[in-house]
C-alpha cells in the first residue's frame, strides 16, 4: 500500500516524459481544451462585465420609484404633483434644501458607434445637481458641469470611448436641437457612463414633457423601511408608483445578459464534446503507444492501479495545460475588452468584459471534466493491458 504512491509517482513521471513521442496528438488535445475554455470564458466575461456595470451603478440607500408595470425607466412617468407626494414619503432624508429627491427624465437619442459606424440608441438623462450628487463615484474628468437652463450636456466616459462626435467642446445635433458638450464624467465604470446628462428642465421643454418626469430617486435615511414607503404609496390614490432600492433595480437589469452566460455554456459544452472525442483518441493512442512499457512494469510487479493513475494523470495534465492556455488567451484578448450592447431600456450600455477567479475556475472545471472523461476509459484499458505482452515484443 505504501508503495502505491511511489509507484504511481514514478509511472506518472515516465508518462509525462514519454509525451514528446506523441507530441502532435497531445498538443491537439491541449489546443482543443484551450479553445473550449477560451470560448466559455469569453461569454462568461461578457455576461459578468455587463452584470458588474449594472450592479455597481445601484446604491442600497437610494429608493427608486417607477410607475407600476414599467420594466425600465424609459417606460415610467411621474407628474410634478406625484414627485411632490413622493417627497413626503416616510424615511426620505432631508437637508437644508429639503427632501433629497431627484426627479429625472430619460429620453433616447441617436449616436454613431465608432466600431461599426452604425446608429445606436443612447440615453439622454435630464437631472439636476441633486441627482448628480446621488451617483456614487461621479467625477468630472474633463471640462465642467452643464449650466442649468442651457443646452449644455456632459458625456459619460463610456459614450466618449465608443461613440463618434462627443468630444469636449463639440456641438451635437439630436433631431431639431443642437447641444454643446461641456464636460466628460466618469462614474466608476458603471452604466451611468453610457449616458448623456443635461438639465431636466431644458429636456422637459425641448421634448414637450410639460412638468412631468419619468423616474424618481430618493436618498433614504439609515434604517428606513421600503415596506413603510410601499404602504404610503398604496395609501395615496394619486400615486401609481412602486419602489425598490436602486441596487435591486440594476441587479435586475444586469440579468438581461445572463442568457449570454447560458449561451456560452451551451456552445462550449457542445465544443467540449468534440474536444472530448479528440482527447479520447489521443489517450487511447497513448495507451497503445505505451502498452509494452505498461506490460513490462506490470511484470516487474507494478500494480494495475499505477497504470490507471498514470494514464489519468496524463489526460488531466493535458487538459489542465489546455485550460491554462485558454485562460491566458481569454485574459489577454477578452479581459477589459470594451463593448456596447442593448440594455434593458433599448439603449446602448457600454461595458467591458470582466474575468474573475470564479470564472477561471469554471473554465478549469470544464477542462478537468474533459480530462477526466477522456482519461478514464483509456486508463481502464491501460490497467488491463495483458502482462504477457511484455514477452511479445518484436512479434
Amino acid at each position, binding site marked *: 500500500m*505504501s*508503495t502505491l504512491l*511511489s*509507484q504511481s509517482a*514514478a509511472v506518472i513521471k*515516465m508518462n509525462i*516524459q*514519454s509525451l514528446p513521442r506523441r507530441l502532435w496528438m497531445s498538443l491537439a488535445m491541449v489546443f482543443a481544451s484551450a479553445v473550449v475554455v477560451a470560448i466559455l470564458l469569453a461569454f462568461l466575461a461578457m455576461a459578468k462585465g455587463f452584470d458588474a456595470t449594472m450592479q455597481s451603478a445601484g446604491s442600497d440607500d437610494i429608493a427608486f420609484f417607477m410607475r407600476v408595470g414599467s420594466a425600465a425607466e424609459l417606460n415610467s412617468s411621474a407628474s410634478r404633483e406625484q414627485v411632490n407626494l413622493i417627497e413626503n414619503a416616510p424615511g426620505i432624508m432631508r437637508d437644508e434644501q429639503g427632501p433629497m429627491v431627484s426627479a429625472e427624465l430619460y429620453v433616447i437619442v441617436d449616436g454613431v458607434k465608432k466600431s461599426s459606424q452604425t446608429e445606436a440608441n443612447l440615453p439622454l438623462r435630464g437631472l439636476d445637481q441633486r441627482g448628480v450628487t446621488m451617483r456614487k463615484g461621479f467625477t468630472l474628468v474633463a471640462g465642467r458641469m452643464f449650466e442649468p437652463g442651457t443646452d449644455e450636456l456632459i458625456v459619460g466616459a463610456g459614450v466618449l470611448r465608443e461613440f463618434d462626435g462627443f468630444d469636449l467642446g463639440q456641438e451635437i445635433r439630436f433631431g431639431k436641437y443642437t447641444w454643446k458638450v461641456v464636460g466628460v464624467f466618469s462614474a466608476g465604470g458603471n452604466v451611468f457612463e453610457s449616458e448623456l446628462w443635461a438639465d431636466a428642465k431644458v429636456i422637459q421643454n425641448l421634448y414637450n414633457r410639460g412638468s412631468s418626469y419619468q423616474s424618481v430617486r430618493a436618498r433614504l435615511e439609515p434604517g428606513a423601511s421600503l415596506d413603510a414607503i410601499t404602504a404610503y404609496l398604496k395609501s395615496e390614490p394619486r400615486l401609481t408608483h412602486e419602489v425598490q432600492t436602486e441596487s435591486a433595480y440594476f441587479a435586475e437589469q444586469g440579468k438581461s445578459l445572463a442568457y449570454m452566460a447560458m449561451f456560452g455554456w451551451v456552445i462550449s459544452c457542445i465544443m467540449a464534446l468534440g474536444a472530448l472525442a479528440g482527447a479520447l483518441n489521443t489517450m487511447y493512442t497513448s495507451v497503445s503507444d505505451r502498452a*509494452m*512499457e505498461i506490460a*513490462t*512494469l*506490470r*511484470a*516487474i*510487479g*507494478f*500494480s*494495475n492501479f499505477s497504470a490507471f493513475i498514470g494514464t489519468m494523470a496524463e489526460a488531466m495534465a493535458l487538459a489542465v495545460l489546455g485550460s491554462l492556455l485558454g485562460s491566458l488567451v481569454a485574459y489577454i484578448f477578452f479581459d477589459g475588452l470594451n463593448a456596447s450592447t442593448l440594455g434593458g431600456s433599448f439603449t446602448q450600455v457600454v461595458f467591458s468584459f470582466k474575468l474573475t477567479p470564479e470564472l477561471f475556475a469554471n473554465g478549469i472545471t470544464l477542462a478537468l471534466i474533459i480530462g477526466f472523461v477522456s482519461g478514464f476509459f483509456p486508463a481502464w484499458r491501460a490497467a488491463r493491458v495483458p*502482462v*504477457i505482452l*511484455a*514477452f*511479445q*515484443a*518484436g512479434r
Partner: protein
Amino acid sequence: MSSENLFELNNVAKRFTKGKETISIFEGLNMHIKKGDFMAIMGPSGSGKTTLLNLLGGVDQPTSGEITFAGQRIDNLSESKLAKWRANNIGFIFQFYNLMPMLNAAKNVELPLLLTNLSSSERKKQVATALQLVGLSDRAKHMPSEMSGGQQQRVAIARAVVSDPTFLLCDEPTGDLDRQTADEILEMLQLLNRQFGKTIVMVTHDPSAAKFASHTVHLNKGKFVKAEELMA
C-alpha cells in the same frame, strides 16, 4: 513435495480461446525446478516455451492444474497478489530488454526498488551495486538509446537482480545479440547462478546458449521430450 523444489507443476493445462476456437498448448504437464538450478528450455518455435515461462513467472494463469512456488500455490492468486508475488520473487529478462526508453540506466535499474520500502539513499546504493555487478557503473546516466544491445541487456539484468529475487526468468535473453555479446551475457547469468545462488530458467532456441545452463529440457508441441526425439 520435496523441500528443495522451488517450483512444482502438477497436471497443468493451458488453453487459449479465440472466438469459438480453442487452442490447447499444454495438457497434463508436470515438472519441477530445483532450488539453485540453471535450466534451459529448448524447443521449436510455437512449442509453448514462452507460455510456460509466463506460467512460471505468474504473468499468466493455467486453465487447470496446480503451480506451487516454495510450497505456496500461485495459480489461484488474484492479479494484485500475483503482482506482489512477482515483485518479491521474480526477476525477468526479456529478449528485447524492455527498458523504459525515457529513463537512464540507473533509473531503469531502480524501478523494482520503488515497490519496496527502501529509502532513496538505500535504493541508490543497491542500484550502484547492481550496475557494478554487470560492469556498467560508468553508464549509470546513459539513456537506453545511447547503449548497444549487449549493454542494454546488462542493464536489464541489473534491473532483474537489484531487488535480490530468488528466481530469474529469461526469455531468449541472447536472441537479439551477436555471438560474442551473447556469451558475455550467458557468462553473467552463469555467475549469478553459481556465485549468487539464483535459480534460473532460460528459454532459448540456441544450442550453444543452452550449454551455459546446468541442464536442458526440450519442449515439443507442449510436451517434454528427450533431445533425441526432437532431432528425429
